[in-house]
């Protein structure tokens, strides 16, 4: 497959055993391709390449400060940025739309509702009543869907119910209350098309509006709706890394973000008659192996799925390695971060690729639509295809297991609900620890994993810097996958924390890095922040809380980031989001935003100096709060 690989360099990884495993693989992965893509286009990096029309691509240089149409660097950068935020928002809105549809269909068919408490809490927040739990589920789901489908000029009803009142007040002053979430995406695609808006400021304001709809619906509501159908997260230790893979089972790797899409299949895989199919093929049964955010989500709710779920193997940039181990028989994907790089590996190792949602259709995958109405037939067809793959490949492909990778005691299942419960039903113990300086502040190290500048290297280095400064780190996204595989979420990691945080961790038996799971759970972190602010009677920007999407990767991350800014939080990024070609856009995002929402972007690729900046912000906020 890749003859050169014995001579290839791979990128560094914060996970050294994984780095060595990948380097020794007989096949090419993303880690191998980094070197060959090392030369980056300077215009692309700065966001000043425009290919919105056939006169282009136009690029900005000292000799050519405007494109042929007359667009300057500020217009080109703002247009490119706003398009990316709109696309990222579209992705998350797709996820919440499908999640709400699953809840509605579950209610309509009187299906399994795993958390009535979550349903009742959500219904209360929304001001929705129902005849019974099924009717309530339908009403809640429809309330969400009707907001998503509103036109852009009609405000969404749930925004004021979900968001923190002081924030809503500020958003109204800034005129950034969002209309229908899908309409907002549509509006921004139009706005940023050829020779439409050229106003960088207006486009950035639009990004804030997209941030609010993405954050409240795509992030927060997706979690809360999933809690109803899939069960509330519960704090527990769990194994992570490639050691979770048991070759005696038919192993299904799951990739994506839409956990609710395969709940039915997941339950069905434990039915006696289905297990019998596995046994007839020579396996002990079926196991799901987690990868990317959907694996993180399953891990988060792992307490309800101990029998079917083996554990989380790793983040998006581990997926190629996980498949290369030979013990995975099928990949079930329903959304991104399903890397195209898995395709040649699946082909070589005869791994069946199945796609459940056409938006994530991989070239080699069989698109096997899964509809709620025909779930029984659809589910069995998918399961049969997986059993066939197992029969056809096992014994014929080499195994390259990595049983020593990862650890067995990563603390998982942390959510706004489970953490509060752990603290005794109130945020007061955490607030007291912060006030006493035992925890200096909170940092959400969130978002993706990337490889161009090292796999999880900045995420891990920054996290170590932060905990050493007594800052408690909360994670959500593929950053969690990297941090858990290097052991930072085991209780033993307390040793790496500063003296005050270490003492807190030891007393409570927790690691200094708390795992909220998938990127969707950035919404949960923001609920935690909101509830703490509420208890203190302050607005979000006043909290000693910072965000870092150190290794942000995708357009979705930019939409998340826009939510962080709308909430008024400082947001660190390891690499700039293709904006530095515009002085106006860079200044607004890194400086002027403080006066608008209270938030700002900090770009720094160095872990130590970024941690210095973030610690400085936390200390300033502590001072302002007189603590």
């Amino acid at each position, binding site marked *: 497959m890749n003859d050169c690989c014995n001579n290839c360099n791979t990128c560094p990884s914060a996970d050294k055993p994984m780095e060595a495993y990948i380097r020794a693989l007989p096949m090419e992965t993303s880690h191998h391709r980094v070197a060959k893509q090392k*030369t*980056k*286009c*300077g*215009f692309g*990096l*700065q966001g*000043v390449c425009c290919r919105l029309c056939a006169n282009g691509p136009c*690029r*900005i*240089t*000292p*000799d050519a*400060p405007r494109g042929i149409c007359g667009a*300057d*660097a500020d217009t080109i950068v703002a247009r490119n940025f706003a398009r990316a935020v709109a696309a990222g928002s579209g992705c998350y809105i797709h996820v919440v739309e499908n999640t709400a549809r699953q809840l509605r269909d579950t209610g309509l068919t009187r299906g399994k509702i795993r958390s009535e408490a979550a349903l009742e809490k959500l219904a209360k927040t929304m001001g929705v009543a129902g005849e019974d739990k099924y009717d309530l589920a339908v009403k809640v789901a429809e309330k969400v869907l009707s907001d998503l489908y509103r036109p852009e000029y009609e405000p969404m009803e749930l925004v004021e119910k979900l968001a923190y009142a002081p924030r809503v007040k500020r958003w109204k002053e800034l005129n950034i209350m969002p209309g229908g979430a899908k309409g907002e995406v549509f509006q921004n695609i139009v706005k940023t098309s050829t020779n439409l808006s050229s106003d960088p400021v207006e486009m950035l304001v639009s990004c804030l509006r997209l941030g609010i709809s993405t954050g409240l619906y795509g992030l927060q509501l997706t979690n809360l709706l999933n809690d109803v159908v899939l069960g509330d997260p519960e704090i527990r230790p769990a194994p992570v890394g490639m050691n979770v893979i048991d070759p005696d089972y038919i192993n299904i790797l799951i990739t994506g973000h839409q956990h609710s899409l395969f709940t039915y299949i997941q339950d069905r895989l434990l039915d006696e008659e289905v297990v019998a199919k596995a046994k007839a093929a020579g396996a002990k049964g079926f196991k799901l192996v987690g990868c990317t955010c959907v694996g993180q989500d399953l891990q988060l709710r792992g307490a309800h799925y101990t029998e079917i779920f083996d554990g989380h193997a790793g983040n998006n940039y581990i997926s190629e390695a996980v498949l290369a181990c030979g013990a995975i028989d099928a990949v079930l994907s329903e959304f991104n971060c399903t890397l195209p790089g898995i395709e040649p590996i699946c082909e070589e190792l005869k791994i069946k690729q199945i796609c459940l949602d056409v938006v994530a259709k991989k070239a080699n995958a069989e698109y096997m639509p899964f509809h709620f109405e025909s779930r029984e037939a659809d589910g069995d067809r998918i399961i049969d295809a997986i059993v066939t793959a197992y029969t056809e490949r096992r014994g014929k492909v080499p195994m390259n297991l990595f049983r020593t990778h990862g650890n067995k005691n990563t603390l998982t299942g942390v959510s706004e609900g489970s953490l509060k419960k752990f603290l005794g039903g109130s945020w007061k113990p955490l607030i007291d620890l912060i006030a006493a300086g035992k925890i200096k502040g909170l940092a959400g190290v969130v978002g993706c994993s990337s490889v161009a500048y090292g796999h999880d290297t900045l995420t891990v280095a920054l996290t170590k810097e932060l905990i050493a400064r007594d800052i408690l780190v909360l994670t959500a996204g593929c950053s969690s996958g990297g941090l858990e595989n290097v052991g930072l979420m085991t209780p033993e990691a307390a040793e790496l924390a500063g003296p005050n945080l270490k003492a807190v961790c030891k007393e409570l038996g927790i690691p200094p890095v708390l795992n909220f799971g998938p990127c969707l759970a950035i919404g949960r972190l923001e609920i935690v922040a909101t509830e703490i602010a509420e208890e203190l009677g302050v607005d979000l920007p006043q909290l000693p809380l910072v965000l870092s999407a150190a290794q942000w990767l995708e357009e979705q991350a930019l939409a998340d980031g826009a939510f962080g800014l709308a909430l008024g939080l400082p947001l660190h990024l390891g*690499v*700039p989001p293709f904006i*530095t*070609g515009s002085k106006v856009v860079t200044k607004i995002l890194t400086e002027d935003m403080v006066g608008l929402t209270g938030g700002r972007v900090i*770009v720094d690729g160095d872990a130590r100096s970024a941690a210095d900046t973030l610690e400085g912000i936390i200390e300033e906020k502590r001072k302002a709060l007189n603590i």
Partner: protein
Amino acid sequence: MKRIFIDPSKCDGCKNCSVACMEAHRRDGGSGVCTLDLTDPANVSRNRIVTDGRGGYDPIFCRHCDVPDCAGACMSGALKKNQTTGLVEYDEEKCAACFMCVMSCRYGVPAVSADRKRMIKCDFCVHLEEGPACVRACPKKAIEVREV
């Protein structure tokens, strides 16, 4: 002696060489392509890419000629051919800003600086241990340093 050799058939006109040149010679104290001001005339590139009129590109780089037109036209002695390294070197201190070099180069390489106080030309990135930044930045390997 080293020279930059060009294979125009490999050039895609991406201008990565120009951006790398600008970055290598920026004087604002910053570093990293992301923070390079692409609109500041003070950062102008010392090389350029022009279309060849047949759908391809011609990268225009200083050839550090054996008999350099620019140095021949320089009355102040600011431009000199270094016989050991083979480079046509420029001493900004000696430059009278007459721009006869700009007038004489048959390849149109030397340029007038934005502040009109000096000339701008390839210096083979002598300040960089790794050699010319443009060559390292070319994704197509259309330009390379060869020993002559």
